[in-house]
């Protein structure tokens, strides 16, 4: 194979707000560069997980190498590195950006700049990427490309007058984008003779090849037989194969050298050893220092996952282990609940990550799950000077042992049209937000800045935001750090027994309201029994709210006609089946649904 000329490589990504057409543009680029025929194209090639396609978002970064014959007659190698589009995966996004030299900014010709556009473009600029804009969806009747161009120049401050006007959906203007990639995105630098320094921006577990490391070679080179070392985790292995990315396939090659993007396999059994952001070097000739920016990924949101059928506990463990092979950011450890039995406390990057894992467990592994209320990690400072990182409310020490508690805070940016500023500010206020400021992006739109406690936004903040702005508000956040806060544990008692799986940590000012809503919700979810069931919410042993499920007086089949016993039995069996799906707490049978229903307390609002 001929040596690849570094000056003919372009490593880039596409940044955009969700739904502005990033994946569609990626598909068109792959199509136009002729790597695949149109017939081979699946819609949205980059998003190859079913779930991603259904939700219309990219979960795991995918990367593809294509060859483009430019108008200057030269062949260029394009490494298009896909980035996840959700705030939960911000760190992955930052690592993928670090693997690029430039970025295409896609802006919707009708909607203009949104919160994620800004967040992503600033992230790209922070990584010193050369960014050029393209204006997509010009086929829409509501498209106003000139207005969007001005907005990009005013708000972001990058040149936009000659931005390609395209319709990725209809394949219009794609050639212009490809030429712009050649001319506006710089070729990589780096010396192949230096010691190996490669950035891991993703990894994937393959049952045959082991872990496949996705990396950008910054300095040096790597080939089969090189003994590599991960600088942060210390894992060390001999390279089995290197190569680059076809669309949906791995194409082996002899060597990856400075400036190239490709993959490495080395019989590594678990992605834990190949963390995103880590630096790969040559064990025998290591580089002086790792690439900057490595962070150990921290779970931000925790919840308990329990199999609906207790006997499926080993299946759940196997499934989590399998998912973890591919997802280093998924954390889990066994826990037990009096109400729910054996399960796992699981940690996620955010709520979307949680939902994705939950859905994959249910869909791919056929498990029926009960999920407890998601919570964040609280720091509990005890009177003896020690600090506990609390992920399960049930483990909160006795109040007498607690000096004070801290909770994680985020800085949030919310882009909203001016007419909804009032209602969004009200929402942030309700969620204990601290107003930082507001900037008018243009006459009719503003960027609100708030500090918000993470535990106030993990459940349903996004939904509330959407509903109070008729879908117009967009939102992005960054973890800021921990702050002291007046937190209490809210307990739920059903028939005077505390149900551990329903306890959660809440700010003391919201405790009454939350408690009341939970009792109301549970009253609707718990079926009537032969006796009356009090449902109480308590803080520190003091009851703050109560509802009652009245006793059932009648459940009898008066008539049983013509000896049709089978029909009667089916009825009884249905009743019995319903019971099996319930959890016994003391004398009370609680449907699994009840545990989940309390997660969404705000729907009635």
């Amino acid at each position, binding site marked *: 194979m001929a040596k690849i000329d570094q000056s003919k490589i372009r490593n880039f990504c596409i940044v955009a707000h969700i739904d502005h057409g990033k994946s569609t543009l990626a598909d068109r680029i792959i199509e136009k560069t002729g790597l695949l025929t149109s017939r081979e194209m699946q819609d949205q090639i980059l998003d190859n997980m079913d779930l991603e396609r259904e939700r219309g978002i990219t979960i795991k970064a995918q990367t593809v190498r294509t060859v483009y014959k430019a108008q200057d007659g030269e062949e260029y190698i394009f490494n298009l590195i896909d980035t996840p589009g959700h705030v939960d995966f911000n760190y992955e996004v930052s690592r993928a950006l670090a693997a690029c030299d430039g970025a295409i900014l896609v802006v919707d010709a009708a909607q203009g700049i949104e919160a994620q556009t800004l967040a992503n473009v600033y992230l790209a600029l922070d990584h010193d990427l050369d960014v050029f804009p393209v204006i997509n969806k010009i086929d829409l009747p509501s498209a106003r490309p000139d207005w969007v161009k001005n907005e990009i120049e005013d708000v972001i401050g990058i040149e936009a007058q000659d931005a390609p006007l395209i319709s990725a959906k209809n394949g219009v203007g794609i050639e212009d984008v490809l030429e712009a990639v050649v001319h506006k995105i710089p070729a990589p630098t780096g010396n192949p003779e230096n010691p190996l320094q490669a950035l891991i921006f993703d990894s994937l577990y393959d049952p045959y090849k082991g872990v496949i490391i996705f990396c950008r070679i910054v300095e040096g080179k790597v080939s089969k037989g090189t003994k590599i070392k991960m600088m942060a985790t210390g894992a060390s292995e001999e390279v089995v194969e290197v190569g680059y990315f076809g669309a949906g396939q791995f194409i082996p090659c002899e060597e990856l050298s400075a400036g190239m993007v490709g993959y490495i396999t080395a019989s590594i059994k678990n992605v834990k050893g190949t963390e995103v952001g880590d630096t790969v070097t040559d064990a025998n000739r290591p580089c002086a220092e790792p690439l900057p920016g490595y962070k150990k990924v921290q779970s931000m949101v925790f919840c308990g996952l329990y199999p609906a059928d207790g006997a499926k506990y080993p299946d759940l463990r196997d499934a989590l282990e399998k998912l973890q092979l591919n997802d280093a950011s998924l954390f889990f450890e066994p826990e037990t609940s009096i109400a729910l039995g054996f399960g796992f406390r699981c940690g996620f990057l955010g709520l979307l990550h949680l939902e994705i894992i939950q859905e994959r467990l249910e869909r791919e592994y056929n498990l029926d799950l009960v999920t407890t209320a998601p919570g964040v990690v609280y720091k509990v400072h005890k009177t003896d000077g020690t600090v506990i990182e609390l992920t399960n409310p049930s483990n909160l020490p006795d109040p007498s042992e607690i000096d004070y508690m801290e909770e994680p805070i985020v800085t949030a940016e919310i882009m909203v049209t001016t007419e909804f500023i009032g209602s969004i500010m009200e929402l942030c206020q309700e969620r204990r937000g601290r107003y930082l400021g507001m900037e008018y992006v243009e006459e009719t739109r503003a960027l609100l800045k708030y500090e918000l406690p993470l535990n106030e936004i993990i459940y349903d903040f996004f939904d509330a935001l959407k509903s109070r702005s008729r879908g117009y508000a967009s939102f992005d956040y960054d973890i800021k750090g921990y702050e002291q806060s007046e937190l209490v544990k809210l307990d739920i008692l059903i028939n005077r027994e505390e149900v551990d799986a329903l306890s959660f940590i809440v700010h003391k000012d919201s405790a009454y309201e939350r408690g009341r809503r939970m009792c109301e919700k549970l009253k609707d979810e718990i079926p009537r029994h032969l006796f009356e069931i009090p449902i109480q919410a308590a803080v520190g042993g003091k009851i703050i709210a109560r509802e009652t499920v009245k006793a059932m007086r009648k459940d009898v089949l*008066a008539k049983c006609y013509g*000896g049709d016993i089978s029909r009667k039995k089916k009825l009884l069996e249905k009743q019995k089946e319903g019971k099996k799906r319930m959890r016994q707490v003391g004398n009370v049978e609680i449907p699994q649904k009840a545990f989940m229903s309390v997660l969404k307390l705000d729907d009635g609002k």
Partner: protein
Amino acid sequence: MKSLSVYIHIPFCAKKCNYCDFLSAPATAEKRKQYLSALKSEMQAEAKRYEDFCVKSVFFGGGTPSILEAQAITELLEVLKTAYHMDTQAEITLEMNPATATKEKMESWKKAGVNRLSIGLQSAHDEELKMLGRIHCYADFLESYQNAREVGFTNVNIDLMSGLPGQDMKKWEDTLQKVLALKPEHISAYSLIIEEGTEICQNIERYPALPSEEEDRKMYQRTKEILKENGYTRYEISNYAKEGYECKHNCVYWQRGNYVGFGLGAASMVENVRWTNTCDFDSYLAKCKQPSDFQKEKQVLTQRDCMEEFMFLGLRMIQGVKKADFERFFSKTMEEVYGKVLAKWEAQHMLYQDESHVWLSEQGIDVSNVIFSDFLA
């Protein structure tokens, strides 16, 4: 010889009642004729199977069996008498609607061997009858009842319903008292259940409010008291009788005796095998000479199934279930199999037991489904 009960389903009525979810609908005379002929074929075709059985009871149910021409019942009973072994003392019941039973029909039934009539009255108030979609008024019923007595029926049941929309205790007691004055031998008093798909269920908002659960239970309790004062014993959840007049046929269902159902959608259980005839009218007519072709949902009951049924059917009887019977049928003690369940409900005063029997308490009867479902595996 083994005992057998025979149920004959007549899926026709003049008009479907608003609460009815049984397999029944109005039909033309031609259809009724075809059906009758198919019924006879089915009974003939199945006769050989029951060579070793003696028929102890027959029940014409529906629908409205009284809608058929008088001759029809005679012909059907004729098939039974010739092709089956009929006990001369067999209880032969026919369900009738006051609007469709003439004195001539009654005479003909009597002659054919029918010895028990079950009259669907439901309420002694015309406005309630109208609301339920019944095609008769109270006066029609009185006339039918009078006729039945005159023709010589000495075993008569009257069906009543409590818990009707807009009904209060006074109205219900009034219905009970009016009926008691007639001194029937048997009273079935059901509490209305709103079944899915019925007229009432679909248009519930157009009806007066249903009594509350508390009121409904009070009516039920009151029924029991009033009937007891008048010499009726409650022997099953909804059935009351003067001594010696318990419906033999119904008891067979609860005590798991053999019974065969003929006709559209009829259910059978013979020697621990259950099945149900097709509910498709045309298919029933087409295959009546080959009944095994339309016998559906055939289920050979396991010992476990039988034990479950023994409990949840037997406990419908007020006297409860006999521990000795359980042991005799299953070679296991009831304690061994259901000890835990019995103890659980006994602790909540939902059922009681002594050396020989297990029976439901008053409160247990009210919520019997909850308890019964606990006997299922």
